[in-house]
């Protein structure tokens, strides 16, 4: 059974990959773009580039309409209350840094910030550095044996000094959905702000942020089949209102004199300078594209691929999964074989997977591993991709053993 992807033909990169004998299994790092997104990027430039929110002229108006159209589409995609709750960023990393600077004024010495032990560096370092700037305590919520944030320990660790909880929705290494609902409830009970890193989670399934009830949610366009250089910070209106401005420059101002200025409220007050206009228009096109597909069919295809990946990996002796992943990826090590050697030989055979620490050094250290191989899937992968990976993997192990 070949398990074809009905969406593969929509992504021109796969023709190039076929021509260069590459098998792309690294979508958790960044995803390929459908033709519709490429068309939107090119279309924006072909019709005439113009800056947004500034000019009266027709090209400027067209660019602004397309740009603001994406804001509306993102708000709908996330079921935000209003497009005004959508701030455009360069990506998840910038969104989290924006929060760590914009919320800094709310913290006093001794306050606590809770993160989990599985966070990507992007959702660890901004908080770690904020804690160091303000003499706060960074509390690291431990994981249970399965690789999920341990709720019992979280309950004990999230307390009256906790002012903010920042956790991933879906781990980029373990591939497990984190128990957000109970975690957010624990934080809310302490009146702490809640930040969800949706960089991986947003790619798999639709998420209703009003139902989730977090204060902030960040994601990157490039993992969601959209161009790189644009991302989203969602913030509930009340939460956004607590942010102090952090980057200063053009277009985020209402009034400027040499020695003082007044700034715009969110979202525009947090979008200083010229944004990634083409990429943001491309994000709108990606959401249009995804919205036009049968969501259940995508979920079913990704689940079938994931099952086949796990079943195939289970046939290799000495292979240890880092976790029982829920979706779209598997991270593993092989006994007696260095992950760098494996990744070297896989790349020699045209297999694009990720090896190393996956921007989660503390997690890998805690698991006692110098690194791991991660195979990750997108909606365009098919059974043949996996067969080529398994064959190359088998071959690599033969050489190394």
């Amino acid at each position, binding site marked *: 059974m070949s398990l074809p992807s009905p969406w593969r033909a929509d992504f021109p990169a796969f023709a190039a990959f076929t021509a260069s004998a590459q098998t792309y299994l690294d979508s958790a790092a960044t995803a390929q773009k459908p033709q519709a997104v490429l068309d939107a990027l090119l279309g924006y430039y072909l019709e005439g580039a113009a800056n947004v929110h500034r000019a009266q002229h027709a090209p400027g108006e067209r660019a602004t309409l397309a740009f603001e159209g994406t804001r509306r589409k993102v708000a709908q995609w996330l079921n935000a209350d209003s497009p005004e709750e959508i701030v455009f960023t360069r990506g998840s990393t910038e969104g989290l840094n924006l929060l760590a600077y914009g919320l800094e004024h709310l913290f006093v010495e001794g306050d606590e910030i809770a993160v989990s032990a599985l966070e990507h560096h992007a959702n660890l370092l901004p908080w770690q550095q904020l804690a160091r700037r303000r003499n706060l305590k960074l509390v690291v919520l431990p994981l249970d044996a399965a690789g999920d944030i341990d709720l019992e320990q979280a309950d004990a660790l999230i307390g009256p000094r906790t002012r903010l909880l920042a956790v991933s929705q879906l781990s980029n290494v373990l591939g497990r959905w984190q128990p957000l609902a109970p975690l957010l409830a624990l934080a809310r009970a302490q009146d702490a702000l809640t930040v969800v890193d949706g960089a991986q989670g947003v790619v798999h399934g639709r998420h209703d942020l009003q139902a989730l009830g977090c204060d902030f949610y960040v994601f990157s366009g490039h993992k969601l089949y959209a161009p790189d250089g644009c991302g989203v910070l969602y913030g509930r209106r009340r939460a956004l209102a607590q942010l102090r401005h952090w980057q200063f420059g053009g277009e985020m101002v209402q009034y400027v004199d040499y020695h003082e200025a007044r700034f715009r409220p969110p979202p525009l007050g947090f979008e200083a300078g010229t944004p990634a206009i083409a990429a943001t228009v491309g994000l709108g096109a990606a959401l249009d594209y995804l919205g036009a597909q049968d969501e259940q069919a995508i979920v079913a295809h990704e689940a079938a691929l994931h099952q086949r990946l796990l079943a195939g990996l289970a046939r290799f002796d000495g292979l240890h999964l880092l976790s029982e992943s829920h979706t779209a990826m598997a991270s593993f090590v092989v006994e007696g074989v*260095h992950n*760098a*050697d494996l990744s*070297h030989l896989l790349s020699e*055979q045209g297999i694009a997977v990720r090896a190393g620490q996956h921007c989660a050094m503390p997690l890998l250290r805690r698991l006692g591993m*110098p*690194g791991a191989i991660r195979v990750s899937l997108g909606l365009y992968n098919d059974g043949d991709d996996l067969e080529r990976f398994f064959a190359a993997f088998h071959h690599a192990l033969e*050489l*190394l053993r």
Partner: protein
Amino acid sequence: MNLTPAAQAALDAFAHTPGWEQRARLLMQWGERLEPLSEEERCEANRVHGCESTVWLVPGHIGGALHFRAGSDARLLRGLLALLLLRVNGLTADELSEVDVADWFAQLGLARQLSSSRSNGLNAVLQRIRALATEASL
């Protein structure tokens, strides 16, 4: 630039090896020729950061010539380190500054291993070697 006999032997072996598999096997064989490092030499001070694998680089001299030793926990990287040291050791610091290491790896059929997108850290090792050689010659 003259190659040492050992470097010439490596070049002869690799340049006539067409397939990636044979090259990988050769790399592992040449990696075994690295002089082993002692427990004390595998220390934090000798770690080269910027590598996904653990790499140690131990500086040294024999007379006026550079004599680095290196080790790693990854086998193919050990081979790459061995090939790098073959080209570096025996030179003076001045001579090293003239050597085009990228060209050396290209001649071996291993050009990709030194490119900036590689996370194997070979480039980081080379930078460290150049820095240490310059430092020692000052």
